[in-house]
């Protein structure tokens, strides 16, 4: 199977929330490509729309939210794994219908941020995993239980035969996240969406979970869409990185380039505002001040003219950035940036071929 085959393609996705106070443009024109067996890191600060993008992918947007524009194409690998694919337009599916439910938890599954609330407290870990297995695989209960225990063992849950009958509140945060991952992977999905799965965890537990996810990815050959605000985690996990700001992807490229040669002023600002261990320690008498992005994310009801980042941008071009919204610019194949600074440099560069 070719490595670079596209698994999911998000085109010009708009997901809006229609509230009494106004319209929140949570996702406002997102283009993303997730390739098979690859990890796409999606980074951004709170309110940038990264979680809503992932929920749109599974059609789990709660009302009053709605996908208003764009499409999400799922290139479903065929059963025989002979390289052929079925293309499913996820945006065209009924959000409660059979087709999308067959995809959820089976082809594409999801791990959420809060391991503490991801499972019902009144049902055992086993019940909640077995349920997912029996839903998508034609096995009886005993077999499903066997598979659930196998899966728990795979996520390195201590004493899986016993833990399977525990209630979630009897487990620690790290163990719960393992259980949730076991649940998500129980049907061997093609894509795992991980929405800040380690944010609520301690750093040593986080390292364990990240390690686990990487090894499971190798074992099961799945793609991961990893959503986080932590650039360190992105650096560890992702091959491709998309940086989001105010509902848009402002820059997307491979992980090395993002960290070593970021182009978008927002990405640059984000990177320089995190304290670097090496620089912190090697500083001399004078402390290195952190570079920071001025101001803050505007409230979600306002719609800015021009580039959404222009009020905070240190390199803002007057009469351009506050007037015209920058288009996606491919500075080279595999590196997209939405910024006027690069409009001159690359006159509408070649579109990527996947």
């Amino acid at each position, binding site marked *: 199977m070719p490595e670079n085959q596209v698994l999911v393609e998000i085109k010009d996705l708009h997901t809006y929330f229609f509230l009494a106070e106004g319209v929140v443009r949570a996702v406002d024109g997102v283009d993303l490509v997730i390739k098979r067996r690859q990890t796409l890191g999606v980074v951004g600060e709170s309110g940038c729309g990264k979680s809503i993008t992932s929920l749109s992918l599974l059609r789990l947007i709660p009302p009053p939210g709605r996908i208003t524009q764009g499409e999400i194409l799922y290139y479903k690998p065929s059963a025989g794994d002979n390289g052929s694919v079925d293309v499913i337009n996820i945006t065209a599916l009924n959000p409660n219908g059979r087709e999308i439910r067959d995809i*959820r938890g089976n082809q594409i599954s999801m791990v*959420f941020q809060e391991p503490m609330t991801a499972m019902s*407290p009144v*049902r055992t870990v086993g019940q909640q995993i077995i*349920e997912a297995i029996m*839903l998508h695989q034609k096995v009886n209960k005993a077999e499903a239980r066997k598979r659930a225990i196998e899966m728990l063992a795979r996520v390195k849950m201590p004493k899986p035969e016993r833990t399977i009958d525990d*209630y979630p509140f009897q487990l620690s945060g790290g163990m719960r996240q393992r259980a949730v991952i076991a649940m998500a992977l129980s049907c061997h999905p093609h894509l795992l969406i991980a929405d800040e799965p380690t944010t609520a965890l301690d750093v040593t537990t986080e390292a364990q979970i990240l390690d686990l996810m990487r090894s499971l990815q190798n074992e099961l050959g799945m793609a991961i869409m990893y959503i986080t605000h932590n650039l360190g985690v992105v650096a560890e996990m992702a091959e491709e990185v998309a940086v989001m700001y105010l509902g848009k992807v402002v820059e997307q490229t491979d992980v090395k380039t993002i960290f070593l040669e970021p182009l978008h002023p927002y990405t640059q600002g984000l990177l320089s505002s995190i304290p670097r261990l090496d620089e912190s320690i090697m500083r001399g008498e004078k402390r290195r001040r952190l570079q920071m992005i001025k101001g803050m994310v505007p409230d979600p009801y306002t719609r800015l003219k021009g580039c959404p980042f222009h009020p905070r941008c240190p390199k803002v071009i007057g009469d351009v950035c506050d007037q015209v919204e920058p288009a996606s610019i491919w500075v080279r194949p595999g590196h997209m940036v939405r910024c006027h600074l690069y409009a001159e440099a690359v006159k509408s560069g070649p579109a990527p071929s996947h």
Partner: protein
Amino acid sequence: MLSYIIGRLLRMIPQVFLISILAFIIVQLPPGDYLTEHLNRLRQSGASIDQAEVERFTKMYGLDQPMHIQYLKWITNIVTRGSFGYSFEWQKPVNEVIVGRIGTTFVIAFLSFVVCWSLAIPIGIYVAVRQYSLADYFFTFLGFIGLATPGFLLALVIMYVAYTYFGIRVGGLFSPEFETQPWSWAKFVDLLSHLWLPVLILAIGGTANLIRTMRATMLDELRKQYVMVARAKGLSEFAVLLRYPVRIAINPILSTFGWLLVWFFSGGMVVEIVLNLNTAGPVLWRSLMRQDMYMAGAYIVIIGTLTALGSLISDILLAIVDPRIRFGSMEGL
């Protein structure tokens, strides 16, 4: 679990004890004593008074002794012999008067409870899932009316409507022809045909209340992340609802089993009086009005104990359905 139940039982004992003291104080509150009152009434009606009888009562209940001795005698009789004393109004032991009546009241309460649950739970779930829909507004409004209309006023209105527009005289437990007959199938059917009204009236208020609770807890649960996780598993919406939010939201409702019964029991009294049912309510009322002390005391103690027992059952039920309580975890409660 067992230790939980035992601990909970132990806590109930002082509670019931305090209730009995309160009950005794309450029935003693009216000025004058009931025996004198009783004798006065007998005298007025010209009946002869058996002095020996009076003395026998005085002695038996320690009426010539201080209050706490009277209480002790009273409570000892209840605890050791299950005897609640003597009713001066009815001229027979309290136990004889109340047993059957409390039974009937209990049947009414239980039926109301069944009606209430079977209406409130599905409606509560439905309106929570369809929040801000027409049905939600309709049932919310209906719920408000149900809460604002106490049973006895509803009973009055229904009696009026039934009589004026349908020419039916509602009220009573039996039709006149069955009143004095021994039990038979026909009498039972007749009873049922009279019971539906008090049952319905009682159930309306409770249902309104339960729908509100069910809706609120459902809305709380629907917000939780595990619902989204369940959807992300690919479960159908119906299965998601039933296995996740409903499974938890129903816990507080299940636990109403204990107190709702008693609530109907005590709330039903005024309705029973209005509808002129020959049950516990009217008897308590009359005994209170006539200062028939042991009768009133018996009712208050019995209802108080039932309430305490009800909340005990509620707690145990809750511990059974909710593992967080069983395992002593406070998470998310």
